[in-house]
């Protein structure tokens, strides 16, 4: 196990280094000109000064060295649009994306797992068929179409839920602890802010969770069906154990394994989807930040946010692999 961990982390570090190189190549070698973006239409003199200030007049290897050592020290560059270091911007935007992603993941598991179990238990029944067809539809629906429909229904027609921002502007952000508004307001027992931030989170989270719910429910269904056909299930039934116990204690525990394996990959899809959903709902997270930076031709924020998401994605995959050992005692990494 320890040897496996060491090897796994070594390769993680290697890939992380590769990610840094790739993002550097993206930001320096491609035609985008950060200095031009920062000074706008200003004259040649300011432009040259900005190039020098950003270190763009230096040789490429030196630029990379400065970039990499900056990363190690937590220096992600400076945003000329928000007039503060990118790291501070990301400190504000990242928790929003994280909150949205985690909320959707929990929703999708909470809805998808029971749906999958029930579909498998009543295979071919109306629920199974309905779930199958809606799964088919929800993976083909673009997230922004779902979002649009929700906005028209729950905001414009019914007026139940807000559609922009993370919290109502009159209340303002809750006292900061994690940066996730629902969590912070809950920890500080700040009822009104908790209510408001939750209301703002519902639609984006449900939108993002919908395709994932379909995927999880279908995965659980098929691995449940596989498990239910196994000898140990027949044995359990033969011993006279109640059907409910057979399904939940015997089949489900084994059927969860493939789902856990793909959680890491699904998390990546969620992160990508979150970028989209944030734009649909003007939810101020990393996605909106990156998009605004693209419009302003600012490279440092784009690169840093991308880097952060990749690192998070990799760590999740590592965590899933490690968790796997504890969930499935049969697995021993050598």
């Amino acid at each position, binding site marked *: 196990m320890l040897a496996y961990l060491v090897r796994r982390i070594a*390769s993680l570090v*290697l*890939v*992380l280094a*590769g*990610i840094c*190189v*790739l*993002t550097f190549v*993206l930001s320096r070698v*491609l*035609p*985008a000109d950060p200095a031009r973006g920062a000074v706008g239409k200003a004259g040649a003199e300011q432009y040259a000064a900005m190039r020098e200030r950003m270190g763009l007049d230096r040789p490429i290897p030196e630029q990379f060295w400065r970039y990499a050592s900056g990363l190690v020290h937590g220096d992600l560059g400076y945003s000329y649009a928000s007039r503060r270091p990118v790291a501070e911007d990301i400190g504000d935007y990242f928790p929003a994306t994280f909150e949205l992603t985690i909320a959707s993941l929990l929703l999708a598991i909470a809805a998808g797992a029971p749906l999958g179990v029930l579909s498998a238990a009543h295979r071919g029944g109306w629920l199974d068929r309905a779930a*199958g*067809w809606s*799964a*088919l*539809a929800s*993976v*083909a*629906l*673009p997230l*922004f*179409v779902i979002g*649009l*429909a929700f*906005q*028209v229904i729950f*905001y*414009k027609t019914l007026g139940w839920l807000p559609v922009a921002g993370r919290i109502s502007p009159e209340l303002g952000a809750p006292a900061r602890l994690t940066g996730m508004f629902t969590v912070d307001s809950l920890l500080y027992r700040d009822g009104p802010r908790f209510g408001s931030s939750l209301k703002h989170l519902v639609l984006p989270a449900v939108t993002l969770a919908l*395709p994932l719910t*379909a*995927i999880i429910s*279908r*995965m659980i*269904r*098929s691995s449940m069906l596989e498990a239910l056909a196994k000898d140990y299930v027949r044995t359990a039934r033969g011993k006279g154990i109640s059907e409910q116990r057979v399904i939940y204690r015997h089949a489900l525990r084994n059927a969860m394994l493939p789902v856990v394996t793909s959680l890491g*990959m*699904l998390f*990546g*899809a969620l*992160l*990508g989807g979150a*970028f*989209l959903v944030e*734009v649909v709902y003007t939810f101020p997270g990393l996605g909106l930040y*990156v*998009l605004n*930076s*693209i*419009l302003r031709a600012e*490279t440092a924020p*784009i*690169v840093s*946010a*991308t880097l952060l*998401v*990749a690192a998070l*994605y*990799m760590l999740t995959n590592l965590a899933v692999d490690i968790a796997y050992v504890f969930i499935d005692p049969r697995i021993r990494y050598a």
Partner: protein
Amino acid sequence: MSLSIHASVTRSALALPATAGGLAWLRAGIVWLPLVILLVVTVAGRALAPYDPDAVLVTDRLQPPSLMHPMGTDPLGRDVLSRVMTGARNTVPNVFFILISALTIGVLMGVVAGYAGGKIDTVLMRITDVFLAFPALVLALAIVGMLGANVRNAIIAIIIVWWPWYARLVRGQVLSIKNELYVDAARSLGCPAHRILLHHVLPNSMAPVGVQALLDIGAALLTTAALGYLGVGAQPPSSEWGAMLAQGRQFFLDAWWLTGFPGLAIFVTVLIFNGAGERLRAKTLSGWSRI
């Protein structure tokens, strides 16, 4: 991204009872007829459209769906239905281009890595690891952000994030094939490496990856549309579906049909390709183990 996952969902939903003799043609029709219609619209959309998709008529601006304009009109008074129909031509071929390019790069990398093995394999696979370490849409967005927002760069960006999946898949295939008896036989007969690769390894490793690419058409279209919606793909006045979405975004609460109908077109197209891909998979690989 959700590549293979997409497929698995479609598979389980379409896994109806084995095709019963009499209804087989009906079932085949349900899958293939929409595909044919889609291809016809893609090729001849402009000729079939009821209006000129670029005809500006400001007096007719932002009309909701009606008999005259079943999908309404846009802020310039252009007919949305005509634009959606013409848009197919600006949208669907791009997706094919993306997949074919990604497939070409992926197969090349995968075959070289799998067949050469050793250091070359390690280096190539670490490179794919780096690309796969990003959520696809996030990396594509960053690339297009750096390259500049237009449809060509969006296509390039998606190709860049797409090929590593095929490289991995092909490498796995090649690894298992290169130790097959017939490859050994060819080698012992003095067959040169490039010939073994081209005539023995490549043809036999293509089937699963080709089917996977078919199943990925839907996912690739969704990614292209997402970039378009974000405003970094095709730009107005193009009637590419993503560009129409981006334009409609500013009006969405007042004129839902501007995003609703191109969105619906994407939805239906993805459904059609997912269904057709799944059918092809079932047909060509019925003897294969699952991939």
